[in-house]
């Protein structure tokens, strides 16, 4: 038997030895039951057990519990030990309570009373026992009971350091379990913050954890801690490791305190005060520099501690997201780690880089490591590291590298671990749609995805493929072609049959002239899969057959035979039977015209939030911080959406706390005492500059519409023909709730008869740092010139706030691109020759005359930019159709740059009088 320290409880040691000598699980159980019976009898019969014996038996119970057995008695004896005046008995009593008891015990009041007694003891070691117990199991009742005692211990000048440390973490526990019951007097705030400066590093270490939690609840009250944290941090990182004696860990000075301070600072925006800010930047610089120094020890403890501080510093740099040099240095450092032989470092570097990819300052720097990350995907032996590599590829993806990255991810998918396949499928689907320049590519990717990972393709994914095809007329015949080809594979995943079945039913006619895919060939091919499919898929295929009856009358009889067949007409599956019966009848009784009406092609889907992003978030609730995946690429001004096809909706804004402190006139009145009870009004009115900034929406469909210190308003629009679907995001940037929130978007004067605005109501409150969404539609009834207006009002801190601004819906939002060849273009051009149909203007260039920029702008404006039409390759020509509910207005344009003169000549012709003028007005100051 090994020696026991202090040789305290022989009986316990004997018992433990017995248990260890048991040869079988049964023998162990017998021994334990014998002991439990013994203890139970002792507790029951012998009321005169002394403290020592109680302690011994309670300790045995604890041991039995730790072996994994349930303990349902002995609680009273344990609680009795708390009131012993012997330290060791008390200690075991507290240990039993901490380890075994959960919150629902009837003896709570008794325990609390004992703790209270010990807290009031003069003996610090008794106080500490009580504090440790509360720190382990503290709950609401304890928070209420000790709301004064414990804070007093923390800040009193008489308290010894060890007690202060325990008191700090004890308060942290109470704060975590029931923040509302723990009322900390605001007079204590300054003294709590000053613990950061405590001479004793242990006290400071314990206190930072508490302050971090308090800051999260009430950042303003504790903002004084920033200054102290920066100076403490600075003192540590600039000192030599020899200065901290026992707080130096393997040559790294106070790593625990450093990391906690760096985390504390992540609760705040970068410091306003330039001197504090530069001191903080120096600290971060120093930490990055130290990472380049040779190691002071070969021990892993040294490098781990050093890198722990480094990673936390990088987290802070990413959080501040404002010092581009630090961000790029951080990125380079992580890049080095990607090649390190320690798996831990590679894992963490991939994880942190994911965050860096979200910053506009470092996105490009992250992309330099693309090859290394792809290599990690192929060569890492640890699946969790590979998972991080997938996450990073997803985060670093943008328009420039999407094709390569999607290809790499597809290749990896074929051999990827089953656990991460579904998520990879979602990510590939999202990226290939989001960055599709050519939707044929998107479809190729998606069908390949279904082919190689069909089992992991969730419903949302293949639904989405269909939505995209339905909403994009330009790819429908291509979709039918490749869907048909995919079906020809001998083993075809059922999800593929669903997608192909649906697409052929809608667009099979587009490839029917090809002798390789005539109606009967399409039908036979699809039907060869029919019997291999589940009832749900068969139902879908039956609908396709019905559509074939309409598209291909020549194979109607074949289809009727199938519908009549017993396996369908009398199927045991009710749904199949019903469809077969109804479709058969329909095919018999309807004449072709009626049939064509019933089976008209599907109308475009309304755009909503992409179900894929929703799904991805469900899958990974926490591993991807909000706002990272959605904003991986900084929105360059020229990548507006065309608005004529489905795009993944993104949360158009993420609340940026960093700018919160930039005060302007609006916030200055916030100090007005609430008790005065008067409303102060503040209105932000449109100025010429807001009108000008509204014009940026000529070329983009989503962006920040308005922002001040209180609120950020983002807008996103998707146009389908004459209807634009609007999503507005109202982000509350403050720590108070915004109430009485109301919005009004309206058309004035003539505009009233030109636009029909239909917005859903918005919620009347927005929680602190939360976002509220409003959706709606605007129909274009006729061509128009003016902008609608938006009024917003709400109460913030009892003050009425009003925002008025133009609502940036321009006529070009309803333009659809029109593609045509040169002959067609000039034919139409000549047809629009009446003076009222044309408008021409010569204007000076406002921006550098770069060909590609112009082309992008014209493309983003919504109409096409046709190549090879004009003999002069410098000129631009294109066409579009403006959809209103009453008519479609054709428009053609020609833009001729004159680089010598630094001028442009813009000529627009439109089929409706006056429209050309309006379009020229919109564009004449935009190039």
């Amino acid at each position, binding site marked *: 038997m090994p020696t026991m320290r202090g040789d305290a409880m022989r009986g316990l040691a004997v018992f433990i030895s017995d248990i260890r000598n048991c040869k079988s699980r049964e023998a162990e159980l017998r021994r334990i039951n014998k002991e439990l019976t013994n203890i139970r009898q002792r507790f029951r019969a012998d009321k005169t057990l002394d403290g020592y014996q109680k302690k011994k038996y309670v300790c045995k119970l604890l041991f039995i519990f730790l072996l994994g057995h349930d303990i349902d008695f002995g609680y009273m004896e344990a609680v009795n030990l708390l009131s012993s005046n012997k330290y060791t008995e008390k200690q075991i009593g507290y*240990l039993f309570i901490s380890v075994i008891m959960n919150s629902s015990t009837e003896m709570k009041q008794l325990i609390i009373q004992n703790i209270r007694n010990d807290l009031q003891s003069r003996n610090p070691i008794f106080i500490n026992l009580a504090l440790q117990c509360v720190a*382990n199991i503290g709950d609401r009742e304890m928070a209420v009971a000790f709301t004064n005692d414990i804070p007093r211990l923390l800040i009193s000048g008489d308290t010894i350091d060890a007690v202060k440390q325990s008191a700090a973490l004890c308060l942290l526990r109470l704060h975590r379990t029931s923040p509302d019951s723990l009322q900390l007097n605001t007079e204590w705030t300054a003294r709590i913050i000053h613990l950061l400066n405590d001479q004793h*590093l242990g006290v400071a*270490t*314990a206190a930072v*954890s508490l302050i971090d939690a308090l800051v999260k609840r009430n950042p303003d009250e504790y903002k004084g801690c920033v200054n102290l944290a920066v100076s403490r941090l600075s003192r540590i990182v600039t000192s030599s490791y020899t200065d901290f004696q026992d707080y130096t860990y393997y040559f790294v000075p106070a790593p*625990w305190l450093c990391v906690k301070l760096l985390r504390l600072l992540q609760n705040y925006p970068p410091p306003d005060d330039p001197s504090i800010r530069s001191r903080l930047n120096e600290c971060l610089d120093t930490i990055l520099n130290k990472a380049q120094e040779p190691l002071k020890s070969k021990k892993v403890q040294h490098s781990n501690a050093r890198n722990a501080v480094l990673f936390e510093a990088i987290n802070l740099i990413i959080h501040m997201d404002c010092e581009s040099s630090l961000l790029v240095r951080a990125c380079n450092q992580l890049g080095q780690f990607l090649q390190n032989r320690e*798996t831990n470092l590679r894992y963490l570097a991939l994880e942190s880089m994911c965050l860096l990819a979200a910053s506009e300052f470092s996105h490009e720097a992250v992309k330099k490591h693309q090859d290394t990350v792809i290599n990690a995907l192929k060569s890492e032996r*640890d699946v969790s590291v590979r998972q991080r590599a997938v996450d990073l590829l997803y985060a670093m993806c943008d328009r420039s590298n999407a094709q390569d990255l999607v290809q790499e991810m597809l290749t990896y998918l074929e051999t990827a671990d089953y656990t991460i396949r579904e998520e990879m499928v979602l990510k590939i689907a999202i990226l290939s749609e989001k960055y599709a320049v050519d939707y044929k590519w998107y479809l190729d990717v998606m069908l390949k995805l279904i082919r190689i990972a069909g089992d992991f393709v969730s419903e949302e994914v293949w639904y989405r493929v269909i939505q995209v095809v339905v909403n994009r007329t330009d790819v429908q015949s291509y979709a039918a072609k490749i869907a048909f080809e995919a079906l020809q594979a001998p083993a075809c995943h059922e999800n593929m049959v669903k997608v192909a079945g649906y697409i052929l039913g809608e667009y099979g006619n587009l490839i029917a002239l090809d002798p390789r895919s005539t109606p009967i060939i399409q039908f036979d091919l699809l039907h060869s899969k029919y019997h291999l499919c589940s009832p749900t898929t068969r139902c879908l295929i039956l609908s396709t057959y019905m559509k074939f009856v309409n598209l291909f009358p020549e194979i109607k009889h074949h289809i009727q035979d199938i519908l009549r067949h017993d396996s369908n007409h009398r199927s045991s599956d009710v749904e199949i039977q019903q469809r077969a019966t109804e479709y058969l009848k329909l095919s018999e009784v309807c004449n072709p015209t009626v049939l064509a009406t019933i089976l008209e092609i599907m109308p475009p889907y309304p755009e909503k939030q992409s179900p894929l992003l929703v799904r991805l978030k469900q899958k990974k609730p926490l591993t991807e911080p909000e706002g990272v995946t959605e904003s991986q690429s900084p929105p360059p001004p020229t990548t507006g959406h065309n608005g004529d096809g489905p795009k993944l909706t993104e949360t158009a804004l993420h609340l940026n706390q960093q700018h919160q402190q930039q005060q302007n006139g609006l916030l200055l009145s916030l100090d007005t005492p609430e008790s005065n009870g008067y409303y102060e009004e503040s209105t932000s009115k449109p100025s010429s500059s807001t009108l000008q900034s509204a014009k940026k929406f000529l070329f983009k469909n989503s962006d920040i519409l308005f922002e001040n210190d209180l609120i950020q308003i983002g807008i996103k629009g998707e146009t389908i023909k004459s209807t634009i679907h609007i999503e507005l995001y109202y982000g509350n940037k403050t720590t108070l709730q915004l109430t009485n929130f109301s919005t009004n978007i309206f058309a004035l004067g003539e505009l009233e008869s030109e636009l029909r605005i239909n917005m859903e109501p918005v919620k009347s409150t927005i929680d602190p740092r939360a976002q509220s969404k409003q959706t709606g539609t605007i129909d274009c009834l006729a061509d128009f010139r003016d902008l609608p207006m938006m009024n917003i009002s709400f109460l913030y801190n009892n003050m009425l706030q009003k925002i008025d601004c133009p609502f940036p819906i321009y006529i070009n939002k309803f333009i659809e691109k029109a593609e045509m060849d040169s002959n067609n273009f000039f034919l139409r051009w000549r047809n629009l020759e009446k003076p009222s149909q044309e408008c021409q203007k010569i204007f000076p260039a406002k921006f550098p005359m770069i060909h590609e920029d112009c082309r992008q702008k014209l493309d983003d404006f919504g109409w096409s930019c046709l190549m090879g039409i004009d003999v002069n390759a410098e000129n631009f020509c294109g066409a579009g159709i403006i959809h209103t509910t009453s008519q479609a207005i054709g428009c053609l344009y020609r833009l001729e740059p004159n680089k010598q003169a630094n001028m442009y000549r813009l000529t627009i012709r439109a089929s409706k009088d006056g429209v050309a003028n309006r379009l020229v007005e919109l564009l004449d100051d935009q190039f």
Partner: protein
Amino acid sequence: RQGKLRLQKWYTSQTDKSKKKITREIIAAVLSRKPKMSSFLEWKDLKVVYKRYASLYFCCAIEQDDNELLTLETIHRYVELLDKYFGSVCELDIIFNFEKAYFIFDEFILGGEVQETSKKSVLKAVNDQDVIQEEELEEKRSVLEDLGLA
């Protein structure tokens, strides 16, 4: 005897049943890890940081924004404390003196946060407890001696 739990410490309230379930799951996940793998494994919305010392695994479940590398060193510091206190610690020391292992733990980590990183300070606190224990034992012996029972 693989997969036996020697010490456990919970900082969120869980029923005994869910504690057992969580323990089982984490033990299985950690034991299935291979040597070259990272010391971190994702478990639900937490991360388990683990390190192996001879036959013992030490595991901490931490939150997403906790520092993984520092958690590894937190484990190491605790092992150092045990080692120093018991003098070249082995699994048996922890089994036979489990209550001491807990006392050392509470001096080092409280409420899930590191409260004292100085090895000297922690060990001094634990040794002070042992001194009191000795004194109390002495007292007990002398009482027994007075009664002629020793």
